[in-house]
């Protein structure tokens, strides 16, 4: 395994300068996600207006992979409609489970496509998918409230 395929330039950047790691005081929902066996813990903040995620950010503690993955995800879903965001989450989780290979689909993941390699690291997969699962749960709650 080449470490550079895991700790890519992008992951390093998102980890070192987590621009999306900031508390959001006017969030419409703040959803906690955790990974007890690792100790990773994030809180995902979303500001949703009607069916659009107008802003997103996160706080919490975790390894580089979970921090970067969260940050990339936020870049990707900010401004997106709820159902679009859900589709992206779906594609991401499928990519990690190696259930998808369609290039066109994968391109919808933007930078997050570079997280593909963590699917080869059983113990780190959980770090990579934590925020995506958390987003999924948060969006379901939002829809229920609507």
């Amino acid at each position, binding site marked *: 395994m080449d*470490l550079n395929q895991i700790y890519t*330039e992008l992951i390093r*950047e998102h980890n070192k300068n987590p621009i999306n790691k900031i508390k959001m005081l006017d969030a419409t929902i703040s959803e906690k996600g955790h990974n007890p*066996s*690792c*100790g990773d813990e994030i809180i995902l903040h979303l500001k949703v207006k009607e069916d659009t995620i107008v802003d997103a950010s996160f706080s919490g*503690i975790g*390894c580089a992979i979970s921090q970067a993955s969260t940050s990339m995800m936020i870049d990707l879903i900010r401004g997106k409609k709820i159902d679009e965001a859900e589709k992206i989450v779906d594609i991401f989780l499928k990519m990690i489970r190696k259930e998808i290979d369609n290039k066109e689909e994968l391109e919808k993941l933007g930078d997050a496509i570079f997280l593909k390699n963590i699917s080869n690291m059983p113990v*780190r997969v959980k770090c990579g998918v934590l925020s995506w699962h958390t987003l999924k749960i948060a969006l379901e709650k939002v829809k229920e409230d609507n």
Partner: protein
Amino acid sequence: MKDYKADFKILKQKINGSTIAYLDNGATTQKPLQVIKAIEEYNKLYNGSPHRGAHYLSVNATKIYEDTRGKVAKFIGARNSREIIFTKNATEALNLIAYSYGMNNLNAEDEILLAITNHHSNIVPWQIIAKKTGAKIIYLDCDKNGQIYKEDIDKKINKNTKIISLSHLTNVFGMVHPIEYIIGKGREYSAITIIDGAQSVPHMKVDIGSLKPDFLVFSGHKMLASMGIGVLYGKLEKLEEMEPFLSGGDMIEYVDLYETSFHEVPYKFEAGTQNVEGVVSLSAAIDYIENIGIENIETIEEELLKYALKKLKENKYVEVYGGEDLSNRKSLLSFNVKDVHSHDVATILDNNNVAIRAGHHCAQPFIKHMGLNSTCRASFYFYNTFEDIDRLVDSLGGVRGVLGYGS
């Protein structure tokens, strides 16, 4: 130093071109050829159900099983082999004490004194018992090095203290706790003392005869033996007054439809077909350890620890926990790398075949108490070498770089 690794094939194999610098011995140790062979031989020549049969294989299995009980007793300096009970691991042994002694002897005024440094296996069972009996859990505090201290012990032991349970050697910072002092205090206040020897028994001389705790537990797999075998030592008079825990075959005397009389100690606590294969491995493991000499193991690990602490200090981005006083530290150490989460450290080291452990080490209360989120832990055994430590130190040198930090 002698090349003990010659007996450990797993540490001689090459994975992607290099051997493994195995520094996760606190989690589980590797097994020497002598132990592997003993298991094989048992399965090829002697396997049988113990205690139950009149035929050759069963008689042999019984003899191996009971002889090892005696060997274990001698190894830890217990006078009577009936004080040795085989369990599946240290965790089951602690649960046995909690359910069988704790559940039946505690009530709402009583206090259970635990150290904040305890492993989850020595916390969660007591929480369950506390909830069922109404007893209160009190924690011994520790200083910034992870060591408990006399003033706090004196303050927290009182006439309501019924049970004191703590590690001999702690599994996150590697502190040798002052258990002689605590056992003495326990006796003074008529509290029973339970020593979690999971980390100490494999690495240092533990002598029941001079320590005189009420209970001691440890796991075979952390001292060269198989997984699936653990030991509970208990004072005979305590064991005799205790109710059984697991029940079923072999631990009974007479079973009537609605009543059962139980077999004598130690059998009363060993229900169902016992793990003779595991016991065989433990027997071979004790032989191996005694062949080296537990004092020599202590000396080797002291050297390793000293060397590791010295070398790690040279990296200014590495913070090692536990302080400077080596007289009460043994066999393992915890650290963190600045700006890097322990899991990333472990992954990066694994890429160089350096095996350490990262996370909370089954001691969340301690980790939180120390204001940490997680640590990296390197834990040694006598077969480790300075070279293993050099590889650890070298790999650590590259960690921050991988994550894009200036050196």
